[in-house]
């Protein structure tokens, strides 16, 4: 390596752009060349000196001033017309294609090749499965959309064939509209009051059933009334139970089973509002001593002082309760 080349490489090395192999060569040269070693020292000194004129961050005022001036200039420019933008886009697209003609041709060839190969594979696959498909078609039923299948109950493969029997349960959303007096509607409402996972749906259905009972619209003992009693005893939602209690209120005096359900609620319901309401709805029943007993029990032992007080008031106010 001569000194002239070494001087060039010293600069490149000082800025970290000399490849490793050339760096080793340069080091070897400089160990025996004091002039080049001095050259490197001088360059190092230059770099230190040059740093005495450092790059400064632009002052905030300058940035703000420049930005404002630019915004004013941009605002003054007329907006680009649609045809100018379209022309620009076409020029760009053309330039892109022009810049990469080989790539475009390759893309075309690869695309055509993939298409031919894909078509060939598809045809072969079709031919191989034609017989199976024909057999399957003979026994196949139209498959419902996956969303309508609730569960798969069994899968049995027929011996020595590709035919499989799949038994599945289907859930198909349905909709029904009708009067509240319609037995089918009532059946659905009663089903909803007992089975729906949604407290809102149970609340709606129980509310409607209770309103029917209060209005005296066909609130038969074996139908809606039973459903409301089940709700009063077992529903997890206090609001829903309260609605059921309201629906049962007109039947406390006439239906022993309803009275028992209300008394149970008075004794056992976890919600003090329900127990208070139960006290209020109990009507004087001459022949039924159980009401009085329960009221006594509640008046003496209910954990809620308000309920105890109310029970005592009812007992004292209504002497006719047996």
């Amino acid at each position: 390596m001569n000194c002239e080349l070494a001087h060039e490489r010293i600069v490149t090395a000082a800025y970290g752009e000399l490849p490793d192999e050339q760096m080793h060569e340069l080091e070897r040269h400089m160990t025996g060349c004091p002039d080049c070693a001095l050259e490197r020292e001088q360059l190092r000194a230059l770099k230190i000196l040059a740093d005495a004129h450092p790059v400064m961050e632009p002052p905030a005022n300058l940035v703000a001033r420049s930005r404002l001036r630019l915004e004013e200039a941009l605002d003054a420019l007329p907006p680009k017309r649609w045809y100018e933008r379209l022309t620009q886009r076409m020029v760009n697209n053309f330039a892109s294609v022009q810049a990469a003609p080989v790539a475009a041709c390759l893309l075309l060839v690869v695309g055509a090749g993939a298409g031919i190969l894909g078509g060939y594979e598809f045809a072969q696959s079709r031919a191989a499965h034609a017989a199976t498909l024909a057999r399957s078609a003979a026994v196949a039923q139209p498959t419902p959309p996956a969303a309508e299948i609730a569960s798969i109950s069994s899968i049995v493969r027929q011996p020595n064939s590709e035919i499989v029997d799949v038994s599945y349960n289907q859930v198909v959303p349905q909709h029904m509209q009708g009067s509240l007096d319609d037995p089918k509607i009532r059946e659905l409402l009663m089903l909803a009051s007992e089975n729906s996972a949604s407290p809102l749906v149970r609340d709606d259905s129980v509310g409607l059933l209770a309103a029917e009972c209060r209005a005296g619209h066909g609130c038969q003992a074996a139908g809606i009334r039973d459903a409301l009693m089940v709700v009063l005893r077992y529903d997890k939602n206090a609001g829903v139970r309260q609605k059921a209690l309201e629906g049962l209120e007109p039947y406390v005096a006439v239906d022993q089973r309803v009275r028992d359900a209300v008394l149970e609620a008075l004794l056992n319901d976890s919600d003090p509002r329900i127990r208070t309401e139960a006290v209020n709805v109990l009507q004087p029943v001459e022949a039924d001593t159980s009401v009085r007993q329960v009221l006594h029990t509640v008046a003496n032992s209910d954990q809620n002082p308000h309920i105890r007080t109310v029970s005592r008031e009812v007992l004292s106010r209504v002497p006719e309760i047996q």
Partner: protein
Amino acid sequence: MNGGKSAQDRLQARAPEMELIREAQAGSRSAFDALVRQYEHQVLRLALHLTGSEHDAEDIYQEAFLKAYRYIGNFRFECSFYTWIYRIVTNLCLDQLRRRKTRREDHAVVLDHSGDEIDLLASVSDDRSFSNPAKELDRKVLGAYIQAALGKLTPRERMVFELKHYQGLRLRTIGEMLNTTEETAKNTLFRATKKLRTQLAELR
């Protein structure tokens, strides 16, 4: 593997910028404003350091971004937007340096931020030392002297030295920005350092 990952990271980092560029190309002013915000500090930093004048830096900022706005439709993602905008700025700076060269040939005078001239040679004391300049010279005066020495380079040498030494760009990127090869950029840097050493040797 790391290279692949970092290339992917860079690509991901550039993705929002590409979106901004596409929107700006489609005529979105807010997208263009976002690009301006992204690069304005770098543009001003370079222009201010090269010209040493806030006024010139402001002019270069203005012209550079107006040009970028006008020609952003020509940007075809063949290089980074950073390189593209720097190319515009370096060309404008080169024009400015050339104009200044013809206006004030060989004058060891620079402008401070307020536009006042500093006569460097008058402000540098006689007992200077090259070996330990930090102890012998006031740093500000030395900086001004360096600026004067840089001013004696040709605009192209000045630009290559600026981009390499102060902005830390790769020679290949510098070549791209100046529409030349890496080899030419390397030779220009070599010439620039040689001239600067000669200039600053006078300080001994």
